[in-house]
Structures are given as structure tokens and as C-alpha cells.
């Protein structure tokens, strides 16, 4: 383990959040309609009974990603990560779920059965998680986090929550880069070949500094917001007005169709 690896990880994470903040903006969707659709799609995928509806939603996410030209390597990486993680988590399902056996595996000292119901449960679980991740991230990639927050604002989310989300989106990359700089500065002072224990010690010393800096930064930020807030109600944003176009109507129609399929149990 090297500190430079941690540095690279923090830098990549900051860059990824930066790109998610701005999005591709290839399709100008009404943020409120888009967020509503994203939430419906994600909910439908996450709570579906089998894997057919999630597969349809996954296909929709690919279409959206293609339309917005956001089907990049980062998006694929996220999905692959989700796929790998859910596969790992759901791996025991075919073996522990009771049902019609489709295969038997001999492990030498014991024999285990693979059930059809278990395989079904595994496929459903994976497809639900991957589809919900795919559809929501495709919306985030297409619109950018800022417009997602704007959509939540349009849905009349509590003002404080919107403010927190917005500040988080802006300040998390700054915080990550600061952490990365502190690490580099500490690494520059390691004059001998450092073992895992030395590096771990350095990493742990960063935590306290980061907490302190974050607190100070948050304290000053609160003062900065207060300094430009002229009413007792505190800071506020006027939600920007967005028109509803033909693209938004098409999106909401597709969303409602898929939602209806889910609710009626057609698929």
C-alpha cells in the first residue's frame, strides 16, 4: 500500500464528483420532470418482483445514456462495480434457497444443491440493484448533480436539505483534494523506505487534521452565507423556472408506462 495510491484514489474521486456535478447537458430536460422520472424508475426497478422489469429499465437507461452521450467508461465502471458487488453478495442464494434442484456440486467433504428458485432469486436481486443504479446514474450523468438538486427543489424538498445537497456537491471535491494535498505533504517528509505500519500511522494523523479543517471551513462558510442573507428566514434560492417541452412529456409518458407495467404486474 502506498500513500500515492490513496492520493490517486482521492483525486479520481474528486474528478468523478466534479464531472457528475456538471453532467453532459446534451439533452435539456426539465429538472423536476427528470428527477420525478428518475425516482419512479429507480423505485420500480428496486421493488420489482422479477428480473424482466429491471431489464426493461436497464435498457431504458442505456437508451438515455446513448441519447445524452453519457455512456462513458466511468458509467460502465460504476455498473461493473455494482454488478460485481451484488453478484458477490447474492452468491449464496442458489445454495441456500430451498426448491427444485438443477445441479449438485461436490465439494469433497460435502455436497451442495443449486435450486432453480435460488438462481431466480439471485438473478432478480442482481437485476434490481443493477437496473436501479443504472437508471439513476444515467440521469445524474446526463443532467449533472446540480440539475438533480434543482429538480428536487422543484419537487418542494425542504430548503435546508436542498442547501445541504448543493453545498455537499460543491465542497466534497474540495475536501477530497485538500485531503490529498495533506497526504502528499506528509509523504514528502518520509525520508526512508516506509513500511505498512509507518504509512498507516501517517494516514491516521490526517484524519484529525481533516476533521478540524472541515469544522473551520464549515464555520466560515456558515458566516459567509449569513453575511449575504438579509432576512430573518435566512438564505434562500429562488427556484429557477423551467418549461415543460416535448422531450419532458415523452419521458414522463415512458415513465408512467413502465410504472403501470410494474403496478399491474404485466411484466
Amino acid at each position, binding site marked *: 500500500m502506498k500513500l500515492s495510491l490513496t492520493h490517486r484514489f482521492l483525486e479520481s474521486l474528486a474528478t468523478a464528483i466534479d464531472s457528475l456535478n456538471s453532467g453532459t447537458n446534451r439533452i435539456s430536460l426539465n429538472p423536476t420532470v427528470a428527477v420525478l422520472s428518475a425516482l419512479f424508475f429507480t423505485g420500480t426497478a428496486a421493488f420489482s418482483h422479477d428480473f424482466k422489469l429491471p431489464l426493461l429499465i436497464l435498457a431504458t437507461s442505456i437508451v438515455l445514456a446513448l441519447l445524452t452521450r453519457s455512456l462513458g467508461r466511468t458509467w460502465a465502471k460504476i455498473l461493473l462495480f455494482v454488478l460485481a458487488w451484488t453478484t458477490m453478495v447474492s452468491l449464496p442464494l442458489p445454495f441456500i434457497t430451498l426448491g427444485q434442484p438443477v445441479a449438485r456440486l461436490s465439494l469433497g467433504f460435502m455436497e451442495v444443491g443449486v435450486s432453480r428458485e435460488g438462481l431466480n432469486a439471485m438473478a432478480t436481486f442482481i437485476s434490481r440493484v443493477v437496473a436501479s443504479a443504472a437508471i439513476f446514474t444515467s440521469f445524474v450523468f446526463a443532467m449533472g448533480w446540480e440539475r438533480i438538486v434543482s429538480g428536487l427543489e422543484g419537487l418542494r424538498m425542504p430548503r435546508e436539505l436542498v442547501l445541504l445537497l448543493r453545498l455537499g456537491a*460543491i465542497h466534497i471535491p474540495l475536501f477530497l483534494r485538500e485531503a490529498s494535498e495533506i497526504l502528499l505533504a506528509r509523504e514528502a517528509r518520509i525520508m526512508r523506505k516506509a513500511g505498512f505500519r509507518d504509512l498507516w500511522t501517517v494516514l491516521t494523523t490526517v484524519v484529525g487534521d481533516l476533521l478540524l479543517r472541515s469544522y473551520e471551513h464549515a464555520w466560515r462558510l456558515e*458566516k459567509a452565507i449569513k453575511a449575504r*442573507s438579509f432576512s430573518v428566514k435566512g438564505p434562500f434560492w429562488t427556484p429557477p423556472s423551467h418549461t415543460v417541452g416535448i422531450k419532458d412529456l415523452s419521458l414522463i409518458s415512458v415513465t408512467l408506462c413502465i410504472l403501470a407495467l410494474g403496478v399491474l404486474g404485466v411484466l
Partner: protein
Amino acid sequence: MLLSVENIHFKYPGGAEVLRGASFSADKGEVVAIIGPNGSGKTTLLLVASGLLEPERGTVLLGERPLKEQLPEARRRTGLVFQDPDDQLFNPTVYDEVAFSLRQLLSSAEDVDRRVREIARNFKLEGLLSKPPYKLSMGEKRMVTLASVLAYDPDVLLLDEPTANLSSSSIEQIEQVVANARAANKAVVVASHDVEFVAKVCGRAYVINDGTMLGGLIAKSVLSDESLLALADMRPPLVLQTLRLLRLRFRENPLTIKDLVEVSVAAT
């Protein structure tokens, strides 16, 4: 006096007393400097002067009335620019940053838009309006912080280390902004380490040391007084140091190159 800060005592929770009887004042069309070493209480004093921190003792008067009684409406009369722009900028785009205060003050979106574009033109930020502020250079960020505060046209401008980490061309831009604010009859208070900057823009200067204030005299005499400056852990401007090393004396101490040229021409 437009802004009068009198006998301020302030202590952070669990900490030592940062300000111990600090006082200063600034009037319309005046640029006042507060100079002092790191940790002397300059930033805290500006936060108290803008009503963001409440002192344990002492008063802040804005237009002869206690600032405390006029809050939060009085915040539109004071504009505080923080030392680190990243502490101040919190909007997704430069446009939103400048519009943040205007959206609270102006009723129509068209008026907000018009004012934002006017300010952007004045500060040469037109090309940056759609960019996220945290992705700008330090000089650009500084101009955005100034624009976002001057957008609502405050009477008092409080600048905390405005030239920190800036290139010389950015410092020149800041000098111009301060000169314009003075010309617009605003009271400008500058907390700074930068003796060259203070020499160029400030009319009066206070030295803050260990939470107490000294001076309040004409900036020229404060910046020529080595013993007073030593309290602020500062040296006189380079022009004056050079003249002293060369044992050259003029009737008036030149603090900037422009002053030096003027006194040299007058002397010859």
C-alpha cells in the same frame, strides 16, 4: 462616522481573549487599513464589525445606530470579503454567486439578470458566468467574491487580506476595485499584511497587536514608523527601506514608486 467599532472584547468559546478593547472607525469615501501579525485578531474584528460575531463587550455602530439593532437587514449595508475565497463561494455557478444577494433584494428575474450582467461586465467576468466558482483561478475567485458583494452595493466594504496569494496583475485589479469603491463614497476597511498594497490604497491605518489597536493615524505616518510597524511584524514599504539604506531623505516619505517619482521630480 459611517462605521464605528468601539472597545470590542471578544473570546471564542474555550479560547483566549482575541480582542481586548479594539476600536476603529471608517467614514464614507475613506479607505482604512488594519494591519497586524498573524493571529492578532484582524479577521475576528472584521467578523464583529459585520455583525457576524457578537462581542462580549463593546459596540458596533453603523450610521450612528447599534448594528445589533439593525440586523439582519443591515447586512445589505455591509459587505464582507473573506480571506479564502473557497470559504465564501458556495453557489453552483458564478452567475448564481453574484445573483445570490440580488434574488433577495430585487423582485423580478429580469432585474436580477440585468444587474448580474452589469456587474460581470464591470469585473470582466462575462466569460465565467456559467462556470463553477471553485474551478476558477485564485485571481478569478477573488474577483467573483468582490463582485458578489459589490452587486448589492453595500455602504461599507470589509476586505480580509484581499491580496493574499494573488499575482501582481490581480493585485492591481483589486487596487482598482478599492479605488472605485472609495470614489463611490463607500467606507472600505482592509485587513492586510501587504504593506505595499496598504501604502497604495489606504488613507488611515491602525495597527492591531494582541487584540488591541494602535494608530488610526494617516497611513503614511504609520507606514513610515518602524517601531509601530514592528508591532505588526511588518517592515516599511520597499521604497522607503531602500531610501533609508541609501540615507536619502525627503521632506515627505515616499511609500510607493509613484510617490518617489513625484518627490524626486519636485526635488529636482
